[in-house]
């Protein structure tokens, strides 16, 4: 495979193609008749996915550095360039995105009834934005993609959303914008500070990373600005309230992408930028403790609030708050296990919550309500749906053998030695997770089939099965044999831990314990 990829010069063009293809795809999509739009979108996203698969082989997993890098001056006078690159973490995020995109198109097949061309054009633009965020290695470019991603999502919620879509869309936009503008200021300030010291004005990631110490005086402020932007995106308690609204109002594909990919941009930002740039601030007791507390509060709080939601989508939205709390815990515990686990949770949450939103959407298409109380006993009429819902819910609960467990286990295992108390409290999240999902499952699938409308529900169609199948396979595969993925992300995790703990300390953590005298 590697040889084949080399023969077609894959490494040279793949990232650019992944970024450009969706945008190019928009052109025929807009020109074609409306009823053909979804087919074109499906074709484009499928090609995008197939092309991206090769990345698995072309990203080597030894050094943990950025690879496949390329840089072209863009606004040379300001030191801004079009620079991209990829490492283990972004590889996983890119693959997750490209995998979910064709599924999103398929999942929207009958859901979107109006302005189809616009919808699919937005979806394709979103791909560029999201992949751009994950592969940009120029901070200015990163910021541009960050905003590019925001706009299509705003329209997807605002135009094709539910009843209260405008409120949700504006809330989503303003929350994100409030953070990201501060981040822009921080990016500029960082670049200027580094320029003042080194004499070159550049937004290049590696350059800034190497010289971030120049902004020492400003570091707490800059870190704060970055952290706020990412915290809103994650979202960390108490910045999470845009999420339930956005999820509830967004169309299915919007919810899926929001949960599976967009939220990960926040945690990705912490891993890639906020913490490595300002390790001294991030590792200071105040910040660490604050973040740990917020992470643990998020885990427990999200789960408890999810438990009492009457709306399925809101329930899943709050469960995301809880799951992302695990990611934050792992990131801030900063051991190799916990960071690897955090990234696994990011991937796992993408699959299982994405799948959950798809299933909820399929239910919504049939009954046009998301109220849990409108269902009950439907396992009898839709057994296949129920089976899949069960598997996905169990993976979200963290049943060992499915993907949810591996990530959470590693996060908690890695964090426990560093922060036993926080981790102990966080572990109770597994109980609450079971509580809210099983309770919801019972009220939807089990109990008496006592509503007439539910008796005529039809089970999943072939298309819907095609949407779910890859996700279910992923859930089981990552649960039973996560090793290849873990190995891919390990070097990046290692690098991150080193950057936080300043090299040698990272090794202390994995030192062998004293062998017992025997």
């Amino acid at each position, binding site marked *: 495979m590697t040889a084949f990829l080399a023969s077609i010069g894959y490494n040279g063009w793949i990232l650019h193609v992944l970024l450009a293809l969706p945008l190019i795809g928009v052109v025929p999509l807009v020109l074609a008749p409306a009823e053909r739009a979804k087919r074109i979108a499906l074709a484009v996203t499928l090609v995008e996915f197939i092309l991206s698969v090769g990345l698995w082989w072309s990203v080597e997993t030894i050094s943990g550095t950025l690879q496949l890098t390329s840089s072209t001056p863009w606004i040379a006078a300001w030191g801004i360039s079009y620079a991209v690159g990829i490492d283990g973490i972004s590889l996983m995020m890119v693959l997750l995105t490209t995998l979910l995109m064709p599924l999103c198109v398929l999942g929207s097949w009958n859901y979107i009834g109006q302005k189809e061309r616009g919808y699919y054009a937005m979806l394709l633009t979103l791909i560029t934005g999201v992949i751009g965020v994950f592969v940009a290695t120029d901070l200015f470019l990163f910021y541009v993609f960050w905003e590019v991603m925001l706009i299509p999502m705003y329209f997807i919620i605002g135009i094709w959303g539910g009843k209260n879509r405008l409120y949700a869309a504006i809330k989503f936009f303003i929350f994100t914008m409030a953070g990201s503008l501060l981040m822009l200021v921080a990016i500029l300030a960082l670049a200027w500070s580094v320029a003042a010291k080194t004499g070159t004005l550049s937004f290049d990631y590696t350059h800034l990373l190497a010289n971030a110490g120049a902004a020492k005086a400003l570091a707490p402020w800059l870190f704060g600005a970055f952290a706020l932007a990412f915290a809103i995106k994650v979202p960390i308690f108490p910045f*999470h309230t845009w999420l339930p609204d956005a999820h509830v109002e967004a169309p299915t594909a919007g919810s899926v992408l929001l949960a599976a990919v967009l939220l990960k941009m926040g945690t990705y930002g912490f891993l890639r930028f906020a913490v490595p740039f300002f390790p001294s601030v991030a590792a200071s007791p105040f910040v660490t403790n604050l973040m740990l507390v917020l992470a643990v509060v998020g885990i427990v709080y999200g789960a408890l609030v999810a438990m009492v939601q009457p709306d399925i989508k809101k329930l899943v939205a709050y469960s995301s708050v809880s799951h992302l709390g695990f990611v934050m815990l792992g990131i801030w515990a900063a051991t190799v*296990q916990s960071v690897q686990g955090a990234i696994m949770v990011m991937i796992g949450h993408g699959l299982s919550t994405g799948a959950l939103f798809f299933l909820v959407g399929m239910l919504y298409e049939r009954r046009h309500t998301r109220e849990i109380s409108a269902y009950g006993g439907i396992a009898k009429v839709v057994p296949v749906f129920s*089976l899949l819902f069960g598997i996905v819910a169990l993976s979200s609960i963290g049943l060992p053998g499915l993907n949810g467990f591996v990530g959470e286990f590693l996060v908690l295992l890695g964090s426990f030695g560093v922060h036993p108390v926080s981790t102990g409290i966080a572990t109770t999240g597994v109980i609450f997770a079971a509580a809210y999902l099983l309770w919801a499952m019972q009220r939807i699938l089990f*109990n008496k089939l006592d509503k007439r409308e539910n008796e005529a529900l039809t089970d999943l169609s072939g298309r819907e099965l095609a949407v779910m199948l890859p996700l279910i396979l992923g859930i089981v595969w990552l649960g039973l044999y996560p090793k290849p993925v873990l190995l891919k992300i390990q070097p990046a995790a290692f690098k991150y831990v080193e950057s936080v703990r300043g090299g040698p300390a990272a090794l202390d953590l994995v030192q062998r*314990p004293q062998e017992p005298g025997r």
Partner: protein
Amino acid sequence: MTFSLLAALPQVGEMTVATGAARWVWLAVAFPLVGFLVNGALALKRPEAKTAVSVVGTGVLLAAFAVAATVFVQLRGHPPDAPIIVSLWSWIVSTGMDIQFAFQVDQLSVVMLLVVTGVGSLIHIFSVGYMRADAGYARYFAYLNLFVAFMLVLVLGSNLPVLFIGWEGVGLCSYLLISFWYGDKANADAGKKAFLVNRIGDLGVLIAMFLLWWQVRSLEFVTIAARVPGTLPVDGGIIIAITLFLFLGCVGKSAQIPLYTWLPDAMAGPTPVSALIHAATMVTAGVYLVARNSVLFAMAPTTSMVVAGIGALTALFAASIGLRQYDIKKVLAYSTVSQLGYMFLAVGTGAYVAGVFHLVTHAFFKALLFLGSGSVIHAMHHAYHATHSHEDAQDMRNMGGLRKYMPWTFGLMLIATLAIAGVAPLSGFFSKDEILAAAFGRGETHKIWLLFWGMGLAAALMTAYYMMRLMAMTFLGDNRTGAKEREHLHEAPWIMTGPLVVLGLLSLIGGVINLPAFFPAGPHHVLDGWLEPVVAAASRLMPVAMPHGATEWALIGGAVTIAAVGLVLGWKLTLANPIPTAHDAPEDTGFARVLFRKYYVDEIYDALIVRPLVAFSRVVLWKGVDQGLIDGVGANGSAGLARALGWIGSRLQTGQLGFYVVVFLIGAVWLLRTVAQ
């Protein structure tokens, strides 16, 4: 570069390379798993293909049993010095960590393997007859097969995370099977309760794993057992914490105080499920976990005392509830909780073999009791069904005199009753006696063990009483089912009675696997010898002082007397007065009512924990913090502030051009003035 650390740490514990049949032990898991997939597919696509389901469902179990037997024979022929580890693949890897998906074959896991597949096979065969008429037949066998697969992962796992797969997996299957008839909310509730309560226990297992990883950097059983003794101080805080958290998991899974409440509710599932999962196998996983980590528990005498204390208390407490239940399965459920308490008393005492011994004999006679009660319920159900009556088919007050209609079931259940009551020389006598003797023997070290022994003895009296009461109410006296219904009562078909006969035989002679030295016929102490390699290290740390000579005989005499007294009391007192049917029975009063309502523990948990938590989440967290504080004050508040400022600003916009010009002029003049200065 630093990634050389990627390789796993070397094993410290000794292990044997797998050879022969042991290499294929994973087949024992694979067969039921295949059965699950096939039956699951059938359940979705062709639920009416019941013959195929029966063949696949029971066939895979028999195949798994064959694998287990083969492995057992190999192990008996060539006993390995150290556990055989069969690594399948590398599961979770990280720096300094390589958790293998691996199975551990040693004397303990083989015992469990045989019990699970053996008793499991019998119960599967029984189910063919019992569930025949159910629409969810294929689904039932799919779940049951999946359960066995997970249970075998649990007992075979060579490290805690793999064990945990099985641990949670059996919980899942238990959940699915309890809520098997999910159309009834009560059943779905019971399933959910079982899963959630088990999750509380699982939290303990997780934290124990974290502690172990933190302290000894390994989760492999052999490595833990080898490293912990040299690393952690005996009875130190850490080892106590580790074992207590592990024990929390056992308390959840094995339904001990205070987490036992899910097990009686679990009777909502089909009766063979109660026999397999909630009596013979899954609920004993906690005992297995303690026995598997016996070294850890032996190093923490404090925890061991807690384990024994909780066990003794549960044995007594649950038995007392069993005294006043009318639902035949509820009696057996509390009996199971009580007997599990015995097992924990044993492993807490350090008598790990006795615990496992009782686990095995209990699997025989309790499975028999449950399956027998299944036959009874089956018959009652048919009778009521035939006459379109809506009486409770499980209420013993509606039974009586069934001996005439179901002689085989009666005889076999009587054997089990005598066994559980501890009548010599049935299986339960030997195992229970060994536990009580061990607790008594430990009385030399601390007086509290004598209290535990006393509690166990009292529980034995109650056990004999409530079991005989069950038999008397069900099978003796006059029939209370109803005149018309009576004609439809009949013995269960052979596919159901057959497994009962086998189990009856095992209950009768099961004691043979570990006969005590005083017993006239040999061989003696087979199980003790067999499990010696597994528990040797723990026994050295925490030796059990078994009483001998006159003391031993006195103890035996006491135990047998108590059993006899209990049986006679149960028989005489139950039949002393005519029993009204459930329909006409007056409400219990006084303490009997407290017992019937199970000391109101469910209600107390509900009022103190469940409701406050839900209310707190809804009112304080969601409505208060989320919608009120963050959204109301924070997000919408700042939006409102912006709007208010905008409103003030908009007042300046009069729309009158003259006003604008005046303002503009003032501004211009002011600007000029400033510039001029």
